[in-house]
């Protein structure tokens, strides 16, 4: 195996395939001897010999052995001729040489190698052991993990044999762990060996390791038990930390959802002072836009499905933005300065929009699919991260910073800020305040629509979608401080993380309730939110 070890120092990508080929050729030549003895045993037509042959094949580590064992399992292994030889039945009934897998020219009359329950068990054990020496490193690792979980003492010889030959460090550590897990419970080994095994398992530090360590036999020496207890404690502390990290991650994920839902409101409510109760419905309209886009793609352009969200985002922005402008022009502009009345009017609008969607699309949930790049997950340490959630966080931040940039850097952003701060002064400087009002409201609504595209991925797309976000959104904006975008960001993330950190202790519903109570109390303490705009007026 030195050749493959040497090769592996070269750039892996280029050489991996080559190295595997070399290794395969090498193994086949070296192990041919061991296998031929085992093959001889397979021709005696005795169960005892067959079982012994399976044992030998399992330990041989030969790639050909795997084919022989699986042929036996499928009833495709035959023997016959003088001297008796073993054949594998290939496709179409041709007899193949088990080592070369080439058809034999002078095929004799053959009989199948007989199998009974005892042999079937041996077959299972052998194929498990053989996958430990499979050419595919991922398969070897998987097999090692499976052995470690089963903790089958019978697999120990095969495992140790495979360990001797293993070169891939990742697979090797998995095998070491599997060996240690078996050794911990094994009878008749020295305490020193057992402690070494305990430490090895302890270093793994996951839930499986914890279960293995807890199974140290009562009869073990006190120092072994002590070592196991110490290792367990270490793992538990470690896992608790990872657990907190995982909850923080979930919290950030929830926070990004809150941010998405609230950020449009931060404009309409925070900047314009309009209590837009129809904000949730803008989110819902965005989600339904996604649904319609996906339906069109499904029926007409199935190849574009992965791009459906990218297409839906601008469409949702424009569509809900236009609805927003329409609402502003027809209703809200008559109600400026009458905050509580806008609340009522926009609530009415939200009822109308909900019922409109219910009439058009029906009251049931609509199916919105996830494109392939948003599904799947990966792990960092003991954190499991789903791609969908990660994309939503990224998207929320992108929307946030795009909005921030719009307000800070563009002409319309400047005008929006001017109108918010001093309407009459802005008007006398020549800014068309009416137009700016409509644009601002459209912008806030459009952002809500974009949020709806993202939320369609994690929530049920139904006419009630918006309802579930409206209260949270208001709390986020009020908590963060009205009129302050950064406050909205911090508020959303704080509430998200706090919610997820409370959940393990209080449960989902109680966690949510306690969070509501905390926010209510917080508003008593700081009635203008986390980042209140400083001013000298008595009444803001």
């Amino acid at each position, binding site marked *: 195996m030195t050749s493959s070890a040497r090769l592996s120092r070269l750039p892996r990508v280029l050489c991996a395939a080559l190295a595997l080929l070399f290794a395969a050729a090498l193994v086949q030549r070296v192990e041919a001897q061991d296998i031929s003895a085992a093959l001889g045993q397979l021709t005696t037509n005795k169960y005892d010999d067959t079982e012994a042959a399976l044992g030998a094949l399992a330990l041989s580590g030969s790639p050909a052995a795997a084919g022989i064992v699986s042929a036996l399992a499928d009833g495709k292994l035959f023997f016959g001729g003088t001297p008796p030889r073993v054949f594998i039945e290939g496709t179409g009934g041709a007899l193949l040489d088990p080592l070369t897998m080439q058809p034999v020219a002078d095929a004799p009359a053959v009989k199948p190698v007989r199998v009974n329950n005892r042999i079937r068990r041996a077959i299972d054990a052998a194929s498990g052991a053989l996958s430990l020496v499979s050419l595919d490193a991922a398969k070897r690792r998987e097999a090692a993990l499976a052995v470690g979980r089963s903790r089958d003492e019978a697999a120990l010889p095969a495992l140790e044999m495979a360990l001797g030959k293993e070169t891939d460090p990742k697979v090797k550590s998995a095998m070491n762990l599997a060996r240690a897990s078996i050794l911990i419970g094994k009878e008749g080994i020295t305490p020193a060996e057992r402690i070494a095994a305990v430490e090895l398992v302890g270093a793994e530090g996951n839930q499986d390791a914890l279960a293995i360590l807890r199974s140290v036999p009562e009869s073990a020496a006190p120092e072994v038990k002590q070592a196991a207890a110490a290792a367990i404690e270490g793992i538990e502390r470690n896992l608790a930390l990872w657990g907190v990290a995982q909850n923080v991650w979930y919290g950030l994920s929830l926070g990004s959802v809150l941010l998405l839902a609230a950020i449009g409101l931060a404009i309409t409510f925070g900047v314009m002072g309009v209590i837009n109760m129809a904000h949730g419905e803008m989110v819902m309209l965005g989600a339904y836009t996604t649904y319609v886009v996906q339906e069109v793609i499904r029926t007409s352009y199935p190849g574009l499905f992965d791009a459906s969200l990218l297409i839906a985002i601008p469409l949702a922005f424009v569509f809900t933005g236009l609805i927003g402008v329409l609402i502003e022009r027809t209703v809200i502009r008559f109600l400026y300065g009458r905050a509580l009345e806008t609340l009522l009017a926009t*609530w*009415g*609008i939200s009822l109308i929009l909900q019922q409109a969607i219910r009439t058009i699309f029906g009251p049931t949930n609509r199916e919105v699919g996830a494109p392939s790049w948003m599904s799947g997950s990966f792990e960092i340490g003991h954190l499991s991260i789903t791609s969908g959630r990660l994309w939503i966080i990224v998207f929320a931040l992108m929307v946030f910073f795009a909005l921030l940039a719009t307000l800070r850097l563009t002409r319309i952003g400047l005008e929006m800020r001017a109108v918010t701060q001093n309407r009459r002064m802005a008007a006398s400087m020549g800014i068309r305040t009416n137009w700016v009002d409509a644009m601002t409201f459209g912008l806030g609504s459009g952002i809500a629509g974009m949020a709806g595209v993202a939320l369609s991925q994690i929530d049920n797309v139904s006419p009630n979608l918006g309802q579930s976000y409206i209260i949270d959104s208001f709390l986020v904006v009020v908590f963060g401080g009205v009129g302050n975008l950064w406050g909205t960001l911090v508020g959303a993330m704080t509430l998200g993380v706090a919610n997820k950190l409370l959940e393990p202790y209080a449960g989902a519903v109680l966690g949510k309730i306690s969070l509501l109570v905390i926010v209510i109390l917080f*508003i008593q303490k700081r*009635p203008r939110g986390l980042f209140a705009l400083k001013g000298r007026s008595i009444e803001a």
Partner: protein
Amino acid sequence: MSTSPMNMTRQPALLGTSGIIFLAVLVAVSVLVPVLNLAVAPDSAVHVPTYVVSLLGKYLTYALLALSVDLIWGYVGILSLGQGAFFALGGYAMGMYLMRQIGTRGVYGDPVLPDFMVFLNWKELPWFWYGFDMFPFAALMVLLAPGLLALVFGWFAFRSRVTGVYLSIITQAMTFALLLAFFRNDMGFGGNNGLTDFKDILGFNIQADGTRLVLFVLSALALALGYVLCRFLVRSHFGKVLVAIRDAETRVRFTGYRAENYKLVAFVVSAMLAGIAGALYVPQVGIINPSEFSPANSIEIIVWVAVGGRGTLVGAALGAVLVNYAKTYFTSGILAPYWLFMLGGLFVAVTLFLPKGIVGTFYEWREKRRQHDDIPDEPLATPRPAE
């Protein structure tokens, strides 16, 4: 404030014309309905079936609820989006009493535990259910539960000067938190299903026609008394301060009044009125469940008041009855799918075209006709647009 000059030395009458009309209508209804229900043959055109009696009774409790909102929104400027919570708490207190009256007639026949507790495998009654087998205690709780919640909540909120929109949003958060809490089975209030399957109230069969009539008349009486109480409050010195707080809270504070205490009293009284409305509502409807806490319900109450006329008391009651009658009428016919369009449209139309509501607009019109009359009948005119 008012468009006409106010004569501070002359207190307006306790009731006023519209108040007298309102009470007269209530008396007429509470006499007529029982008569038409009992004395008129069922096949007669003017016979009032029992289900209509309960329906009317429900409207009256809604009217009382709307009255309680008008007291704080119309006269103090507190737009509570959580008034439904007080209503529901009163309802739950009454519901708990009614549950205890079921006794062994429940599905599981347990003499003490209500059915849902037996179903959840509970062995004994939670402590907060003690005493609800006695009507006086339950009646006390109808007042105390919403009252205490309003006291604690209001004490915190008003002392910290949480006003306007902020107050509206945290009252909404409050009722939302209660909604979530009451949905939990572990809370011991029947979870999702709430409390239902009532049998008796004070020994009378709750389904019986007679009981229904009595409950109806009691609702009318409660509404009348609630109206007189609110009217008494708002025309007193106390009420004048409330209106001043509504229009310029800071100035009132600088004049030396503890505005937060005035607001707190009004808020607690309003919560208790809502609680009474809830307690009368539950036996007539036969169920109380957590959906009564939903924020949407509370917002709907605001609309009743807005339709009838904010700051007029009579208008709030009228608005509640009108909107709910429309709701019953439209949701039961072929127009059912369009009801939400109408309700939504009503919200928009009233805020845009009828900002003073029906009664408020009528007062305004009458005021114009009596330009030269120096004794305004309704000195507490409709409020300016708030804030």
